[in-house]
């Protein structure tokens, strides 16, 4: 019976899929690796379809046992789909990326060694992201974040003959471990004060809290440090540019979309109990302002597209933090969806271009002549990242600033307007390279059918959501109000 799928079985299915792929890799090493990726994509698509036939989860209040640390509310289901779609798109990019992979992984040119793992690891990450979307208990949050992070350790440093990648891997490993330490330490403080790790019970405990506010706040700040690392908020962003630039491009895309989105979902859930403290909002406003300014100003002089996108990901974290500071879950969710579409589209184009030339912006010179399709895809991605109306990126910014005006966050609004102006400059730099500059070479750039299809789908989705955003609102509708929006400040 198809209508009887329980939400947790989705993650189990994904994990089993990952293990199956590894097993097959071991027992039939001669198999063409592209088949791995394609079958993984197909299987994940099946799981994605399955998310539309879930049985309703037990009511939130009465939940015990497993359900006390795993929620299957619409927000969780929504971000499970988000994680699945991201992973599918990243796998498609990885297929395009295999030639580069073979160049930089020892011995793989002939033997295809290591390519199988490259396709299998994102599936484990995906399971971790899906658990993160559902986690409502600090223990669950921690375990799922670790599942994601540890698989990223391997992915980031996968092309290990490339010294930049190795550097990225080490940086990610060290700083990520450090942030995890902060997270655990923060969780223990919160646990010490409230006596529970369940977010719902923490809410109740904090409401009746008389004495130990400072201790609870201290724990929250430490948790914020740990999560700030995940979402690349200033001042925890130091790792971002180097790791993004050094990691294999599909992995960078995965980091900047999947890892960040899951971080924001957790942040939405974790901050909810703490928002009754007035200092918390102020703290988030400060972090948001810093993130906006740093991300946008540092992006201005970049000449390497991967680095530019790294700083842009910091900048977008700033806009998302505006939404967090206003506790507008709908705006944050929509922005993340828009961010997914436009970032993955630009990375998909970048994967193709970087095989031909490299990932400097100058390598895009004259792309409008060499491949009108890729140039148009990049144009749409950049326009959406900059926030041009009738694209998804604009509607995301619209909702964010909407929330900011409704909450009278004047500082955030002023900083936001200035940084939007900066954004136009550095995103249009790419457009300038593609159309204004003349091409150094004139031969066409081949694009595989699958990526062409993917890019077209992404372009259509960006424009469709820019004109008709209702689709996303409807997906969130049942719990809108319940979980996030009606969350009033005391």
């Amino acid at each position, binding site marked *: 019976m198809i209508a009887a799928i329980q939400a947790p079985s989705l993650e189990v299915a994904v994990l089993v899929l990952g293990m199956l792929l590894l097993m097959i890799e071991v027992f039939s090493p001669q198999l063409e690796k592209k088949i791995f990726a394609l079958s993984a994509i197909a299987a994940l698509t099946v799981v994605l379809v399955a998310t539309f036939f879930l049985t309703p989860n037990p009511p939130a209040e009465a939940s015990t046992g497993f359900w006390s640390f795993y929620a299957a509310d619409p927000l969780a289901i929504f971000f499970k789909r988000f994680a699945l779609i991201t992973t599918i798109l990243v796998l498609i990019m990885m297929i395009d990326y295999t030639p580069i992979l073979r160049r930089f992984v020892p011995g793989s040119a002939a033997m295809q060694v290591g390519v199988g793992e490259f396709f299998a690891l994102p599936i484990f990450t995906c399971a971790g992201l899906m658990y993160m979307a559902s986690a409502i208990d600090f223990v669950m949050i921690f375990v799922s974040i670790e599942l994601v992070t540890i698989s990223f350790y391997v992915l980031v440093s996968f092309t290990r003959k490339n010294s930049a990648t190795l550097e990225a891997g080490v940086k990610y490993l060290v700083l990520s471990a450090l942030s995890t330490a902060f997270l655990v330490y923060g969780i223990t403080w919160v646990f010490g004060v409230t006596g529970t790790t369940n977010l719902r019970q923490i809410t109740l405990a904090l409401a009746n809290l008389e004495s130990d506010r400072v201790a609870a706040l201290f724990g929250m700040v430490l948790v914020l440090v740990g999560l700030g690392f995940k979402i690349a908020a200033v001042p925890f962003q130091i790792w971002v540019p180097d790791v993004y630039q050094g990691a294999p491009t599909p992995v960078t895309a995965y980091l900047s979309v999947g890892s960040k989105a899951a971080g924001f979902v957790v942040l939405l859930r974790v901050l909810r109990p703490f928002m009754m403290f007035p200092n918390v909002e102020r703290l988030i406003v400060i972090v948001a302002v810093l993130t906006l300014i740093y991300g946008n100003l540092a992006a201005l002089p970049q000449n390497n597209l991967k680095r530019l996108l790294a700083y842009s990901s910091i900048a977008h974290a700033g806009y998302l933090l505006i939404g967090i500071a206003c506790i507008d879950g709908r705006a944050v969710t929509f922005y993340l969806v828009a961010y997914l579409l436009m970032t993955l589209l630009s990375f998909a184009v970048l994967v193709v271009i970087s095989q031909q030339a490299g990932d400097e912006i100058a390598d895009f010179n004259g792309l*409008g*002549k060499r491949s009108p399709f890729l140039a*148009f895809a990049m*144009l749409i991605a950049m*326009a959406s990242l*900059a*926030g*041009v*109306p*009738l694209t998804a990126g*604009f509607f995301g910014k*619209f909702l964010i*600033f*909407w929330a900011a*005006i*409704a909450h009278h966050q004047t500082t955030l*609004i002023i900083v936001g*307007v*200035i940084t*939007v*102006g900066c954004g*136009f*400059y550095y995103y*249009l730099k790419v*457009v*300038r390279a593609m*159309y*204004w500059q003349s091409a150094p070479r004139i031969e066409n750039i081949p694009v595989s059918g699958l990526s062409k299809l993917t890019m077209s789908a992404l372009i259509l989705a960006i424009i469709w959501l820019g*004109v*008709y*955003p*209702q689709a996303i*609102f409807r997906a969130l509708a049942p719990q809108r109000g319940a979980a996030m929006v009606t969350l009033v400040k005391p």
Partner: protein
Amino acid sequence: MLLLIIFTPIVAALLIMAGAPARRTALVASILNLALSLIALAAFDRSRQSFNFVSSFQIVPDLHLSFTVGLDGLSLIMLLLATIVTTSAVWFTDRIENYESAFYACLLFVSGGAIGAFASLDLFFFYAFHELALIPTFLLIGIWGVGNRFAAAWKITIYLAVGSFILLLGLILLYQSVPPDARTFDMRGLKSAASQIPPDAQRNIYLLLLIGFGVLVSLFPFHSWAPEAYASAPAPAAMLHAGVLKKFGLYGLLRLAIPLVPAGVQYWTSLLLLLLLGNIIYIGLVTIAQKRLDWMLGYSSVMHMGYIFLGFASANILGSTGAAILMFAHGLSIALLFAIAGELRARTGTLVLEELGGLGKVMPFAGLAFGLGAFAAIGLPGFANFAAEIMVFFGAFQNGWEMNRFHYFQIATVLALWGVVISAVYMLRAYRSAFMGSIPERWSSLADVRATLRVPVTLLVVAMLWFGFFPQSFVRIVSPAFRTYFSTSASR
């Protein structure tokens, strides 16, 4: 039918990008659009109190956001202006060396954005349509521009992006200032709820709108993008942008500020008068000092915005109607002037006024057309600019008029009248040094404007003269739109 007018250029642009023959498709689409808008003009029902040709589609019910379009007198003439200028700009396009189809697609996107913005009754799409033109403008100037085109393209894009973002904040604030149960993006709905916006909120909203729209229209301290961009843009792009798209800001102010936030308009009147005098006097003097024809035209288009602002600031039927008609008239004349200037640049390779001269002998047609455009820009009788400027001045002068003393409105009007003299000085000087006098040897064998390119020029000239001699046909269409505005604000 209105939907057809809005989407014809956009669909044509998409077709061109998909591989349709660029010039033919663009031309057919724009002529079709001109014909459709003339039909709309004929079918327009003036006696109707509300909007004609309304159609509406729900987009986001939660936010009361819908795609709603409709026409009243004000938007009708802006629509007409857009289609006339689009047709002549597309027709006037010379051979394009590279990315030919992209050029026409960009032109059509700019045009479609302007038309959509003028026809939208929903704030969100009103805003979004205007922004549709942003990236195409960036490309138009960057790829096909001349001179210092890179800097100009950056400047206009970032200026307009930030300006429209400020505008967006104003629009959101406007929406949120209305009591929750009356919140809607529909301008008509907002108008009926506008009386419930508290006065101090009106001030903030209007200030944001004034700065946002002001940047888009090159109001005095925010003007520096305009001359540079128009000087570097290819002629058809300059025609469309200076003639049509720039009017969006003024259109927005007339459409939103007066009926929705009248207290704000009143509160900031003296500031606006100061800024618009900056446009008229300061920029006027700057224009006189220009040595190049394209820069002079760019600055003159900035300067003339001052008159339109004056008509808007006067906040009465006469002044607002004058402002609306001046938008139309100025759009035609500046498009004509940019067209001829572009042609001169293509032929002689320079627009430095001192190097030109005597071109009237070899290019009588261009000389005549430029002369008519210059006369119209000065505001000589016989052109719609004249009728409009008279209405603006009378409207502004009436404001706060007392027999025994001059109010600041009267002082502003008198100072603004000097602007007419200033524009006479620079226009006639430019005309003399380009077309009169002795002709340099190297240009004595230049041919006149090609026959095919004469058609769009003639179209603009005919439109100008027609509405110059019969401005009443316009006033009758436009002024009822404002009558409803001022009756609502008077009844409070």
